[in-house]
């Protein structure tokens, strides 16, 4: 059964069967990653462009590795080497790349809506690698995969997303994906980091991290963007850590069975203490490994879709 859409723009409205198919397919590819020869010929002859208008190291490398392991031909386009700075319009840039006969575009952009816009000007399969504060579907998929790997099932699981929800692209994708897979999703963070009306998505909101730790099975902890002007959304990083930071003491006191995820890069001593970041409750590096498998699954399913 193929995926129901030609593109992966986000997880909003994506049927549970599609998510299940991606997760199942990733299991197969995850096994490939443990082989001595980590390469399959599945996407031989397919050309994929990684169109990154915004800095990203891990997501781009993860996609690139996934493409190489599927034997696709890949090219990277990043803003530093782009012509957008020379005055070429975004549309012309895309049309030029399109004219080089490519099959798939992986796009990361600081403006929400760019992946959707690409579907209007390109014939290629579009995969969203993060648009503004909108969605980052492959991150949510790899998070779900990693949780499932540890817990066996997502259904009925209580997952709390912690941090700056308003400026996050990871939060929305996780909310949509987890809810459609039957998990109970909640959010925890200061009220200034909660976007308007988010509770309408059916998520509970905590402003007390200890309560969130106590009442959930999984915490998916977002990065606090230190580059944001200090004192505008939170008084200080120190205050954030004191009131919302996840520490060993808090975990040991409130929930020793908790599972901690973090999409990276981590700010040690801010959202997670170093002990937690390296400790027994987290699966941060598993997420990174699983990210390659998830991206292989998405590329494979879209690239071979009839």
């Amino acid at each position, binding site marked *: 059964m193929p995926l129901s859409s030609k593109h992966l723009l986000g997880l909003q409205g994506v049927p549970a069967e599609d998510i299940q198919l991606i997760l199942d397919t990733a299991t197969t590819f995850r096994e490939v990653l443990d082989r001595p020869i980590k390469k399959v010929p599945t996407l031989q002859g397919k050309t994929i462009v990684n169109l990154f208008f915004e800095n990203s190291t891990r997501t781009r490398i993860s996609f690139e590795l996934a493409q190489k392991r599927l034997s696709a031909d890949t090219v990277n386009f990043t803003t530093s080497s782009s012509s957008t700075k020379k005055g070429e319009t975004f549309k012309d840039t895309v049309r030029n790349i399109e004219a080089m006969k490519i099959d798939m575009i992986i796009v990361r952009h600081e403006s*929400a809506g760019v992946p959707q816009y690409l579907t209007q000007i390109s014939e290629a399969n579009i995969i969203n690698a993060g648009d503004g504060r909108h969605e980052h579907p492959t991150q949510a998929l790899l998070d779900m995969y990693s949780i499932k790997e540890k817990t066996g099932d997502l259904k009925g699981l209580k997952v709390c997303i912690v941090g700056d929800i308003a400026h996050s692209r990871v939060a929305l994708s996780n909310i949509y994906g987890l809810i459609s897979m039957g998990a109970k999703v909640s959010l925890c963070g200061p009220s200034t980091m909660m976007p308007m009306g988010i509770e309408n998505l059916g998520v509970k909101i905590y402003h007390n991290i200890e309560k969130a730790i106590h009442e959930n099975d999984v915490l998916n902890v977002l990065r606090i963007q230190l580059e944001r002007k200090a004192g505008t959304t939170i008084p200080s990083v120190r205050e954030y850590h004191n009131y919302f930071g996840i520490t060993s003491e808090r975990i040991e006191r409130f929930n020793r069975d908790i599972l901690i995820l973090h999409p990276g890069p981590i700010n040690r001593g801010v959202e997670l203490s170093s002990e937690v970041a390296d400790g027994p409750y987290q699966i941060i590096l598993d997420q990174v490994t699983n990210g390659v498998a998830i991206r292989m699954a998405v590329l494979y399913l879209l690239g071979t879709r009839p």
Partner: protein
Amino acid sequence: MDILLKSMNLLDPGSKVNEVADLHIKNGVIHKIGDIDSSEFDEENIFEFSGKYCVPGLFDMHVHLREPGREDKETVVTGCNSSAAGGFTGIACMPNTTPAIDSAEVVNLILQKAKDHLVDVYPVGAVSLERKGEALAPIAELVEAGAVAFSDDGVAVKTSAILRNAMEYAGMYNAPIIEHCEDPSLDDGAMNESFVSTQLGLPGIPTVAEDIIVARDILMAEYTGQRIHIAHISSKNSINLVREAKAKGIKVTAEITPHHFTLTDDSVKTYDTNYKMNPPLRSNEDVKAGIEGLKDGTIDCIASDHAPHKVEEKEREFIYAPNGITGLETQLGITLNELVHKGILSIEDVVYKLSVNPRKILNIPVPGIKVGENANLTIIDDKEIWTVDLSKTKSKSKNSPFDKRLLTGKAIAVINNKQMFCDNEFKQI
């Protein structure tokens, strides 16, 4: 030249005219009203307008002509052509040009370019030099050159001190301050802040950013006893503030755009940048409040905020696309379609909102339909069904979300300055 307009519904609230009659226009002046024998007129000078409304020429008090500075988007002449095509015989143009309308020279340039046109152009001067909100523009000199109001449109007047002085200074000439109400510390967004912006992942502009400046300006108008006009009002709370201020006798007036009483932020869901404007499209509740405000007179007039942009500027990433849409040619059609045909306003109300009130706010004489007056008229067919076709617009730009929209009612002719625009062409009369 003598022309005869046959059997129209004459509607002029100012002169209390409301009758079916013919109109004889001689050398641009209304010569005779009544039952007129057509045999004395050349065939080509007789216009059969049976069942059409003849009203005082429509006026749009919020237009961006882009000249000087961005003649690639619009010029005074193309903007005037678009106005005529939309049924307008007069417009006020906003000062956010390059350079801004902050010197007599720029006013003169615009008036010079508009000199021979059917459409009358009334420049709005900048409140502050370069619209920076730091030093007052030469308001007296601008009034003398022909500016009819003052605004830093695009942004709110930066400080309360400059606003106060501008109000008092412009008050000497009875010129209103037209305010773009938006608190700059809350304006870091690309659409209305709402559950929709949350779902779309776009940064939001909250309605309170507008309300704060509306409240400030009303308080300042009360304190100084001067006039304030709220441009493109979009939030329910702002409309309530204006309603309360009017009840207290404070000299505040307000306009609303057709898109703000027609569309909601739901439209942004396609990420189509033709739905990006400032103020942004708001919630359904705000739209309803706008309609209520039009109905009870809280909102005095309808204005397009015609804001032309090049295709290549609009066809880009949502957060980077410029704000604004064109509106001169769709404004009347949307007003008739959405307000008159839905029973919210009468045709007579529309004449107030689109002709009488904007001129009164700007102290411009309202043309009358009576013998001896210069013919300044718009002929409206409120029943014609038509489809908006941007490929045929007179504007240099095509950034409108209303393309292909089916509307009932439009202007079929305008007359002013001894010229007539009818059947897509200008002619001397």
